[in-house]
């Protein structure tokens, strides 16, 4: 089980985008040219240049319009699909909790993007062979965390919506918070069990799917594919033996038929 996590209390988030900017600063990510699309969410989606994004949702509750925010970034899954499907093991889960990326291995197949249940990894679409395109996503500020610092986003948040700490304790903390203010929260810590648990945990006032977090179930999405991979080698052995057996069988059968035909022939000529 992973050590670290972050508990994000979306009821405390003010949508100031401080974390979005702090992430760009620490990771040296350039700005993006955007245009007004009639929403505060800007840029429109995560990208190779934006690893952490505040998404804005307007929901009507009890006849009143409410403004809700989601700090959207990699969930650092306990059983990360991205790492499970990567053919060269470029993505992997560290013992500290973060799911990180070895950019010297990646072949750019983009299976991680396809498989991630939260559609987090992004790709550098505008880079050619010389610029060396890579997969990009939040890395939990592994460079800060492994040096005893908190991630840039958690450090910045002025309203203390992001708590960095040990995952187990954060879950207990989140559940205590819900017990304390049962009217304020949805009665669940999102990420405790989702896809086998994630390092990033959410508290919300409105249903999580309205906030923009998908319904994903509690089994890791790669459970089935990993199982199939386990059976592959034994299956291959059995199948090879079967094929060889069939080949021998049909050979013998044909030979038998040939002999029979020859015998008939001999009898006739005799």
């Amino acid at each position, binding site marked *: 089980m992973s050590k670290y996590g972050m508990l994000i209390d979306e009821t405390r988030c003010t949508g100031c985008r401080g974390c979005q900017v702090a992430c760009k600063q620490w990771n040296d990510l350039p700005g993006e040219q955007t245009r007004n699309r009639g929403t505060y969410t800007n840029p429109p989606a995560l990208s190779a240049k934006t690893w952490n994004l505040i998404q804005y949702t307007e929901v009507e509750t009890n006849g009143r319009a409410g403004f809700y925010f989601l700090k959207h970034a990699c969930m650092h899954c306990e059983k990360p699909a991205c790492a499970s499907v990567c053919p060269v*093991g470029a993505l992997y889960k560290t013992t500290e909790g973060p799911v990180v990326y070895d950019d010297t291995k990646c072949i750019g197949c983009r299976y991680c993007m396809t498989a991630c249940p939260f559609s987090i990894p992004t790709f550098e679409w505008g880079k050619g062979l010389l610029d060396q395109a890579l997969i990009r996503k939040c890395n939990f500020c592994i460079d800060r965390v492994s040096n005893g610092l908190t991630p840039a986003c958690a450090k910045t948040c002025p309203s203390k919506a992001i708590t960095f700490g040990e995952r187990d304790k954060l879950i207990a903390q989140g559940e205590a918070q819900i017990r304390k203010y049962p009217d304020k929260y949805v009665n669940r810590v999102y990420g405790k069990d989702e896809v086998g648990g994630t390092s990033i945990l959410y508290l919300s006032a409105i249903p999580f799917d309205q906030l923009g977090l998908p319904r994903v179930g509690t089994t890791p999405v790669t459970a089935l594919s990993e199982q199939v991979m386990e059976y592959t080698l034994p299956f291959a052995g059995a199948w090879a033996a079967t094929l060889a057996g069939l080949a021998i069988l*049909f050979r013998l059968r044909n030979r038998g038929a040939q002999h029979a035909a020859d015998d008939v022939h001999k009898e006739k000529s005799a």
Partner: protein
Amino acid sequence: MTTLNATLNRFRISPIILIMLALMALAVVVALVRYLFGIGAISNLSDAYPWGMWISFDLLCGVALAAGAFTTASAVYIFNDKRFTPILRPAILTGFLGYLMVIVALMVDLGRPERIWHLIVYWNPHSVMFEVGWCVMLYTTVLALEFSPLVFERFGWKLPLNIVHRLTMVFVILGTLLSTLHQSSLGSLFLATPGKVSPLWFSAFLPVYFFLTAAAVGPAMVIVESFISSRAFYRGLETELLGTFAKVIPPVLGVYLLLKVVDLTVSGKWVYAFRDGMSVLFWIEIIGFVVLPIVLFSMPKVRQNGQSLFGAGLLVVGGVVLNRFNVSLIGWPRPADTAYFPSWMEFAITFGIIAAGVVAYALVARFFPLFVEDPVTKRAHGVSPEILRRSQFLVFPEAARVQAIAAIAEEQDIAEDQVIFRQGDPAQALYILLDGSVNLYSTRGPGATNELHLGTIKPGDPFGISTLIDPFVLTASARAATACRVLKIDGKQLRALGAADPHLGQTLALRAAQAALTRMSWARTRLAGAPS
């Protein structure tokens, strides 16, 4: 190396080949743009659509449509049915080229193509993509080995040929094993995306479905490809053989259909089949491309006719293409604010690769012993009745007459300058020129100066018509002006046909007389105009 030159001459740069070359050139330019400015510069792929047409078509369909190689090879060697030997080499070639095309496409689609070798050194055995990568590498190698006898035979390298022959069985078992793993693993790829693929297509049986549909499309592809190549290379179509091969399609698709129905029932997913646009796609796939081919291929009438075989084969091919697109791209409900349709440059890459495959096939067909004789009857199967249409001389409205002639005709290659027949000899056969040019001349004595040019035969023209006119003695000699391809029809057999079918005999005699007259008047005009 006159034969090689002759062959080179015969490799006509037809308009189709020209179009293919143009498509290839365009793809190369587009690929250059991609390598300079990134995948985003040429495609509509995005973070919302990391996989697009190249994965759905070039990879998934490409591999499935290469399944003819392993299905035919296992029919011949594992099930030991030597009847299928004549279709083995073309099937292996299609599979081999198919895999090479997949690799080329991956070199465009992969974000870091220069690191493809990482698959060999960095392992993640949990990843289905890891298995896919290894299967591509290993099976392409096996296909190359299965294809190698054509090369060794062509150049007469006995030792390697012997070695490969001895190991055939090993290659075939390995190839079938790798194909099974690879076809099914492409389905397993999507086991990791349970929430993303529509429930109509997502299933724990995806690997089994992918394998079964590949096993069905293998023979279908062999049929489609044989039909096309019989037209492109003016060869006979092994209708009977293909009809027999087609018999495996209904049971395989039947098992697939049954499994699918049980699966949808047990997992309670039928509601999704009556809901939205995807339900429509689902029914098109099931009714049009599974049920219909099962019915068609079960009918002897369909299996006995080249064109209906071709049509039904196309259905299976189309069905597998639609299925792969549904599983990997279309059947994915996505956020409303995202959309994807391949850019023209994505199409350019795909078409360029297909074009390269077509050209490579044509080249191999011309330069290597691709089409071999039927080992059982040890003779050519006659020719496809289609070829007869290339000459007015042999056109009859009645299919039976055309078929009768086609059955006794054979194709021949003639090298440049070769004398085909000599004046005064018995006229043993009627010839129709298919390709190239032939000179008719009459001899007054030995030596080229004593030759009197009587006319030039163009493709479609008959010559050796004396074989239809009593006393069946040649009145001129014929020499190939360029390397030629001709249709040769045995005179005795043709006259026998005419005797059995007087209308046919009369028409042929009449046409022969007309051709003789035209030729005579041509020669007379020329003689009149010639300085004496």
